């Protein structure tokens, strides 16, 4: 056990919408350097759990990042504490260039008056992230004309310049080609070494290739947790995924 305080600890997180229990007492711990995959059938509460962690969905229980309690804080405050996320549908600023997108992501801590000036040079962290996600050659391209995979990479790049320590990625490889999936997986492994990464994913091949550990959600509860092999061998997981031979297999 390391003494590192950078881990995400959920205990008894519940989200209720109009009497419908979407997340029902989830407890889990994700450590730094872990690449955790969150899987489960549709409606299991995966995205809602990400919403609860980032302050979008009202939740009870406790979500701690290091020593800081996140529940009850506003979305932008949680983001400033170092928790970043991406969305199922890539949501970049389409009318702005790659550089402008990243520059905005890097700027939440800027002083208000400094915003009234023009960007005089490219901040080093922006340069670095642009290089890291392979978009340097497209820096002055409008984000709206990027390919789908490139938009997802841009989003990940935005998390990097935001200096997020906890990354919640919601189906980052949906709609990507096989090559792009591999590249994205390698990117996640690389950036996950120093960060706490949780990936919500449907793609089981992708999960098997890159997951360090897996949490299976079902009906708002944690059904199983452990290594890929452990989870695949769990009879309860097999039952939930009955007819979905790909996970059992």
């Amino acid at each position, binding site marked *: 056990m390391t003494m590192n305080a950078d881990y995400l600890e959920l205990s008894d997180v519940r989200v209720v919408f109009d009497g419908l229990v979407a997340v029902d007492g989830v407890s889990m711990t994700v450590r730094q350097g872990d690449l955790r995959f969150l899987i489960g059938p549709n409606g299991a509460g995966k995205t809602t759990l990400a919403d609860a962690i*980032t302050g979008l969905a009202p939740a009870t229980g406790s979500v701690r990042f290091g020593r800081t309690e996140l529940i009850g804080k*506003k*979305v*932008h405050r949680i*983001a*400033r504490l170092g928790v*970043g*996320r991406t*969305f199922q549908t890539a*949501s*970049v*600023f*389409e*009318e*702005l260039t790659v550089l*402008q*997108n990243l*520059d*905005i*992501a890097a*700027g*939440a*801590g*800027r002083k208000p008056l*400094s*915003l*009234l*000036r*023009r*960007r005089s040079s490219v901040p080093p962290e922006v340069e670095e992230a642009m*290089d*890291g*996600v*392979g*978009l*340097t*050659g*497209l820096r*002055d*391209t*409008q984000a*709206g*004309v*990027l*390919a*789908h*995979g*490139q938009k997802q*990479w841009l989003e990940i790049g*935005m998390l990097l310049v*935001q200096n997020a320590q906890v990354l919640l990625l919601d189906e980052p490889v949906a709609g990507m*080609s096989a*090559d*792009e999936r591999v*590249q*994205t997986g*390698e*990117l996640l492994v*690389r950036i996950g070494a120093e960060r706490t990464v949780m990936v919500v994913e449907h793609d089981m091949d992708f999960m098997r290739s890159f997951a360090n550990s897996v949490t299976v959600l079902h009906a708002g509860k944690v059904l199983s947790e452990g290594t890929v092999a452990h989870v695949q061998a769990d009879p309860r997981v097999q039952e939930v995924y009955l007819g979905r031979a790909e996970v059992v297999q």
Partner: protein
Amino acid sequence: MTALAGKLAGRLPEKLTANSGALLGFVLGALVLLVVAPAVLSDFRLSLLGRFVCFAIVAVGIGLAWGRGGMLTLGQGVFFGLGGYVMAMHLKLADAGPSGVPDFMRLYGSGQLPFWWEPFRSPVVTLLGVVLIPALVAFGLGAAIFRRRVRGAYFAILSQALAVAFATLLTGQVATIGGFNGLNGFRSFFGYNLFDPVNKRMLFYIAAVTLLVMLLIVWQLYRSRYGELLIAVRDQEERVRFLGYDPANIKIVAYVLAAAMAGIAGALFVPLVGIISPANVGVVASIAFVIGVAIGGRATLFGPALGALVVAYAQTTLSESFPSFWTYFQGALFVLVVAFLPGGLSSLVSVRRRQRADAQPSSTEPPSPVQRVEADGPPPPEPLSGVPAGSETSR
């Protein structure tokens, strides 16, 4: 040589032309407003143009709030009115002399000056009030509205309701603020006789310079980091929140600036036109402000101001010849622009530019991605795969 030139044409000149385009616009605008117009127009026409310039100042603010910030404000008349009435109150008090009471109060009221008129005897308080009162009201409204995440059509309806309420309130106050007739019959402006044509010309110059200054302010805002952030908030408000910003604050800044601009415009309108009444601040007036912005091109630098000038000019000339015809024409123009040219007339320029670019595709392609295959980053895939090159982003 040509290949090199083509490569250079990719980045550098693009920025240069964007800047020199704006510069050219300012120079042209200054020439037309400050040199050509005073030389060729009669005093009457010049002061008419001064009135249009006031509308253009409001339009610059709406362009900022709506075009860049996505806040369709159908109630700018409120801020225009606040600035206008503050100025009008000062002019009435100045005309009445020290410790005097404006004429209409003796006519309709008790002849007693309400306490809240008193501060506007001071020219300094008046000038500050013209800017600060609309700004503070907008700040209060913005803080209440945007923090509750009211936006889109709901914000538009709310802002319009404010204009209705404000005009109704003013109409009801006959004894204290002139009611339906508003405030009028000003004789002097900070000591200068308003019947003197030289002073009327000077008012025009003040309005024209103010318009140019407002354009300079938004020009700097649009090229600043704040301008980029404002577009981000307009297009993806939630996403901005997840980056650690509070979008409400970003929107409040644009809304307050737009309100201050409308207030200043109202204050200039009063001495130029000689009257401010509920009709100048109500729903019809507020929507008229927006129409010019929509027609000119709301997200561009010069579009809103040009649109406002053109629409105001068309309104005046058309209603001189066909008094009842204008409203239909205005409605039809609005429908046509929104349906067929949502970016406004300014977008005609970029449409033309794109057509020309399509004719010679090689020169305007986005820079191709650096071909790198190395350990520290996924190599970029085919540029623009899956997205037809040059496809227009929908607005």
